[in-house]
């Protein structure tokens, strides 16, 4: 089912489009580095960017989870760079983009999901529900 984002105001749209642009920018930078690891990272960022705007009911319903997953993914990418990454201008630029991305996702999280604590609770409940279903319980 296709739905429109009726609840977004102008600021909401600007925020969302900037998030998508930043995700695509860091994806592009990762594609220029070469190698499977960086390409997989780029593909993941493109997938997240698409999931942030795809007008499907299931994506819209789980946007809170996509947002949280994208924050976690960007944090993981920054962590990997801190451990193994090259310190040069493009690395710093890319980390700047990812930090801005996390900040804007955090603002969205506050606007639409009530902040990180409610998101953590929802994630916990979703994990429990998934585990129960996998183990055959109700």
């Amino acid at each position, binding site marked *: 089912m296709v739905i429109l984002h009726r609840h977004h105001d102008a600021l909401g749209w600007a925020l969302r489009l900037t998030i998508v642009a930043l995700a695509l920018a860091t994806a592009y930078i990762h594609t*220029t*580095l*070469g*190698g*499977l*690891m*960086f390409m997989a990272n780029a593909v993941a960022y493109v997938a997240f960017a698409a999931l942030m705007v795809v007008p499907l009911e299931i994506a819209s319903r789980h946007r809170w989870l996509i947002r949280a997953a994208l924050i976690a993914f960007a944090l993981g990418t920054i962590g990997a760079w801190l451990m*193994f*990454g*090259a*310190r*040069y*201008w*493009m*690395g*710093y630029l890319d980390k*700047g983009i990812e930090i801005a991305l996390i900040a804007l996702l955090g603002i969205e999280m506050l606007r639409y999901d009530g902040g990180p604590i409610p998101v953590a609770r929802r994630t916990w409940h979703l994990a429990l529900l998934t585990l129960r279903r996998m183990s055959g319980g109700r």
Partner: protein
Amino acid sequence: MRLALALVLLAACSATGTAAATPPTGAVIVTAAVDSFTTSSVVGPADTGFTIFFQIIDSSQHDLHVWQGETSVAATEIFGGPSARILDVPALASGVYRITCDIHPSMEAALEAV
């Protein structure tokens, strides 16, 4: 803003390497593509300075970093291919040294000084 500019300048100044189209006579040639060196070892002269012609044959980004144990001996800047840089390596005692790429941690080869 000033901090970012300082970081960029620091990164740009901390590595060496001159752009080049063809290898100078007698240069050790090292080639990189995607996320690997095309050879697991190269040989250079011991006890005298020499040059490495480091070429990237695709559009990926790399640098060439020469190590003696954990000590950096010489490094090119990080650059994108297809392109090449010439790296002047100081005199090395005979032995085996590591060459790596700072972007791709899995890239490692041996530089044997004989």
